[in-house]
């Protein structure tokens, strides 16, 4: 018997690189208080810099925002950022794992690592979002999201500060939908009631 699908088995994963703060600022603060899904975010950050993204967004979001901790359960209605210089993964039991494995396309944390592990854990309950960036990281990860039956969204390259990441994602993932930032936010807000 397949277990009843529960809210705990749905999540959003978002990745961005150059231009990340602007792009995320159009999406994360738009999520209303009471938004039920966990939102897991990877931003490419230089290894030795702690940009304080969780604190920056905590001040602007209705949802709680924090840095993901190793072995922490993924909680609904919370925004999590990958720590600088650690890959963020999701375990089959919906807890976080951190890793110091090699960078992927010169980046750690990498979108591919989060997206692929989250696709394994959440299956068709996952929504993957690739935003602005300057590498092909995220393309393979988004394809894994779609292959697992999840939703794949990409920022329209023309509106992205870095076009390369969204273009690579669209090339790798024909099922992905290209939307501007406002429409991505609206799509995420509607997501819980549409699954």
């Amino acid at each position: 018997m397949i277990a009843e699908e529960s809210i705990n088995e749905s999540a959003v994963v978002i990745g961005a690189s150059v231009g990340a703060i602007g792009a995320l600022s159009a999406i994360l603060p738009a999520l209303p208080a009471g938004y039920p899904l966990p939102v897991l975010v990877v931003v490419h950050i230089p290894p030795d810099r702690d940009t304080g993204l969780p604190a920056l967004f905590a001040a602007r979001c209705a949802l709680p925002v924090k840095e993901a901790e190793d072995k922490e359960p993924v909680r609904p209605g919370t925004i999590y950022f990958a720590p600088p210089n650690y890959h963020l993964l999701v375990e089959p039991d919906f807890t976080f794992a951190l890793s110091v494995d090699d960078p992927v396309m010169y980046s750690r944390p990498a979108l591919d690592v989060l997206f692929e592990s989250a696709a394994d854990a959440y299956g068709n309950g996952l929504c993957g979002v690739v935003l602005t960036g300057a590498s092909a990281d995220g393309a393979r990860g988004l394809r894994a999201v779609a292959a697992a039956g999840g939703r794949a969204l990409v920022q329209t390259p023309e509106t992205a500060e870095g076009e390369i990441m969204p273009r690579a994602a669209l090339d790798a993932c024909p099922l992905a939908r290209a939307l501007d930032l406002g429409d991505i936010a609206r799509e995420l807000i509607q997501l819980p009631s549409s699954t």
Partner: protein
Amino acid sequence: MKSLPSRTEEIELHLLLEAIYLRYHHDFRGYSVASLKRRLTQARQHFGCETFSQLQDRVLRDEGMVSRLLPYLTVQVSEMFRDPSYFRALREKVIPHLRTYPSLKVWIAGCSQGEELYSMVILFREEGLENRTIFYATDINSTALAAAEAGVYDLDRIALFTANHQKSGGKGSLSDHFTTGYGRAVIDKSLRQRVVFSDHSLASDAVFAEAHLVSCRNVLIYFTRPLQDRAVGLFQDSLVRRGFLGLGSKESLRFSEHAGDFEEFDRKERIYQRSADR
């Protein structure tokens, strides 16, 4: 909800780990699935196997296969003086305590290719404690241990090592401890003289040494919580009273069943001190 192929793959992964354990006694069964799966997927692709079951078949039947698989199962890459502020905190806060002992034992668990070990030996030399310290460097991977003992690093990594060393409050120049040539840097042989290299698994082996400092960084993040508890229990039993435990910057005893046996000594740098009352 996960798809059936994904569940099947998970089952195959667990069977592969069970096979490795039963046949070769390498215990990876308590490792975090997500990281392990990622690395084993790379291994599977490298060895041309369509499924983990095919990889399992080869591991069981080909004696040489498991040693080729081990590099994928264990994390290979580190840096000298990684997280320089950790080493600065050791220098400024832990070393003054260690000076009070006539002789010292330091255990670097999961030493990989020796970057963390030699960081520690250099630090102790710079602080004048090397001559009264024995260092134990352990890893589950004997190939990594051999590389650690050789102490040879690609030259292009030395710039980062040097920058880290400076930030950690290093005295003198890191290059004083290396000989360079042919694109490689070889660690000064004298740095190995007080080191014992030993094959040791935190998943299955017993207590190791009576240590004043255990440094085990970015190893526990690869373990499930029960295996983390086992490892931390080993460290507790291996430490002298008031001995120090150093973990990675994103590791913590917060979720550990042994949290009550340690006091936070430097919270930011994840340095703990074994409680006096046990």
